[in-house]
């Protein structure tokens, strides 16, 4: 009797561990962050647009950090994810290129270095001895900040303290003057400026050619993509339509985004914050491959990506579904890079 109980117990554990979702064909599990740099996710989640067009149930999960979203993807708990380039690259390179593909871009811009008004920071050198926060170790903002610091001669070994802290905590600690600066995505940059006595110090758009760099990508788990191409294509199609809608009717998009943020964060953003934040973000389905490859190189230089050589990350892109969609819509295609320039 006891043995049978024990066997039953382990059976349950085992089936939980191997976990085959009952309706894998009709459910898409999508992750995103509750940030304004994930606009398609927020709008789509609010309006149910993806369910309508993709013909499948969409299970949304909001994560606090891109690394957690990638952890879920690796654990087979997610099929698609809106995520920053660095967590996507980390997961891609660590899995030796197996686990995921970038199927589209989501947003460009919407990231800024904000400094505390009374921290006495006038130029980059003033950051010496100061505490600068980023939302996660090895995440997109962390890589951007550390690369920028290095370019300003404040790299490893300088007295600038880079602290990975979650966005909501950055806000609290910034208010309490525990932090002097933060490299954060929207709406946190604007919240720090409008609510916590922060000043815009660097708009990350100024650091990239034409002001364009991927702050969010849409990635798919490789085996899910291989098995459900039609489904993913419909999802990408909706994603492209939503991107266009956000660009053409920003007010409607803002309304939907705020409704979703209110659900996720407990309260909506004040209109003034939403408006200011939106001036820095551009929704785009272009993953801006050139900038992504550069970000990969930066991450490798910071030793976030392993290997003696910079990893070849060009195969991370699978833009065929995006380009099919764009061709059908009569829009210019997105070029896929052949290889990495070493």
């Amino acid at each position, binding site marked *: 009797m006891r043995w049978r109980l024990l066997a039953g117990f382990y059976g349950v554990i085992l089936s939980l561990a191997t976990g085959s979702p009952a309706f894998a064909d009709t459910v898409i599990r999508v992750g995103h962050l509750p940030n304004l740099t994930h606009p398609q996710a927020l709008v789509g989640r609010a309006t149910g647009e993806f369910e309508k067009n993709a013909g499948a149930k969409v299970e949304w999960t909001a994560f606090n950090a891109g690394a957690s979203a990638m952890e879920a993807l690796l654990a087979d708990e997610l099929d698609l994810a809106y995520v920053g380039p660095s967590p996507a690259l*980390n997961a891609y390179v660590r899995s030796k290129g197996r686990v995921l593909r970038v199927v589209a871009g989501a947003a460009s811009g919407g990231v800024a270095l904000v400094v505390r008004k009374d921290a006495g920071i006038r130029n980059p050198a003033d950051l010496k001895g100061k505490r600068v926060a980023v939302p996660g170790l090895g995440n997109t903002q962390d890589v951007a900040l550390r690369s920028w610091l290095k370019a300003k001669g404040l790299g490893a070994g300088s007295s600038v303290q880079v602290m990975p802290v979650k966005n909501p905590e950055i806000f609290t600690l910034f208010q309490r003057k525990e932090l002097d600066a933060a490299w954060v995505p929207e709406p946190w940059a604007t919240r720090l400026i409008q609510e916590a006595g922060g000043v815009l110090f660097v708009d990350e758009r100024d650091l990239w050619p034409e002001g364009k760099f991927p702050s969010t990508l849409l990635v798919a788990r490789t085996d899910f993509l291989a098995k459900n191409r039609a489904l993913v294509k419909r999802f990408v199609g909706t994603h492209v339509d939503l991107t266009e809608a956000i660009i053409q009717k920003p007010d409607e998009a803002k309304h939907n985004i705020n409704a979703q943020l209110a659900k996720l964060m407990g309260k909506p953003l004040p209109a003034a914050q939403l408006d200011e934040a939106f001036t820095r973000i551009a929704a785009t389905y272009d993953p801006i491959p050139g900038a992504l490859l550069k970000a990969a190189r930066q991450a490798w230089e910071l030793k976030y990506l392993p290997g003696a050589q910079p990893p070849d990350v060009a195969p991370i892109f699978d833009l065929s579904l995006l380009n099919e969609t764009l061709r059908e819509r009569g829009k210019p295609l997105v070029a896929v890079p052949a290889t990495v320039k070493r």
Partner: protein
Amino acid sequence: MNNVAHQAPSAALTAIAQTKARKDRLDRWRIYAMRLAFFASLIGLWHALVWLEVWDEMIFPSLPQVTETLWLGMSDQSLPAAIAISMQRLLIGYGLALCIGIPLGLLLGRVRWLNETVGMLAMGLQALPSICWLPLAVLWFGLGESAMIFVVVMGALMALTLATRDGVKNMPPLYMRAAHVLGASGWRLYVHVMLPATLPAVLTGAKLGWSFAWRSLMAAELLLVGVGLGSLLERGRELHDMSLVVAVMVVIMFVGLMTDRWLFSRLEQRFVHRRWGTSA
């Protein structure tokens, strides 16, 4: 004649002692062999699971990967640095807990109304995992060392205090009476009578407090990023480097085992067993 009568049993005793020593040695070897076989089969199982590709290499790192990570960590000083900073936090926090906990425990054991009030609070706090203090500690002490040390202190303090208190309460009343009769009072009573008499209990508490402190510190370092073993483990997590996660786990286990084996066993041997004649 008399001599022989004396020698015979002593020779027999020697023979018995020799057989016992041989048996002990054999036992020890058997234990070593058993351990070796156990760990070898554990490693074998690990290898087999990796080889059979039950799990992806990325979520279940292989032994060579972990060894390589350990080696890299040692050679670029990141592991020794992390161990040093963690030990430093632990020693400061644990030292503070010792300084507060033992006197507090002695007092609680002696002063009844204090035990009814503070003792009750200590029992309550004992049930609270000290990592629960972290959100408050960060706001009270900032993001630096102090918050983490506070969590360590709160982790070890209650175990120490309560163990010391119980040691005092379970002390044979005769000791106190004898001490009074012999004229000990005031601080002498505490230092020369109560402290030595409660030493076994205090040491048990100290051991418990140490492991609580160690766990609290690891939890705090996992959540509060910076440097240290816990933070290194979290780094492995954030960068999806599971070989780093496993390597740090091995180091944490090793450090814990070493402190228990070397530090506490020796202290026990030296101060408790020898003093109280309970050594084997």
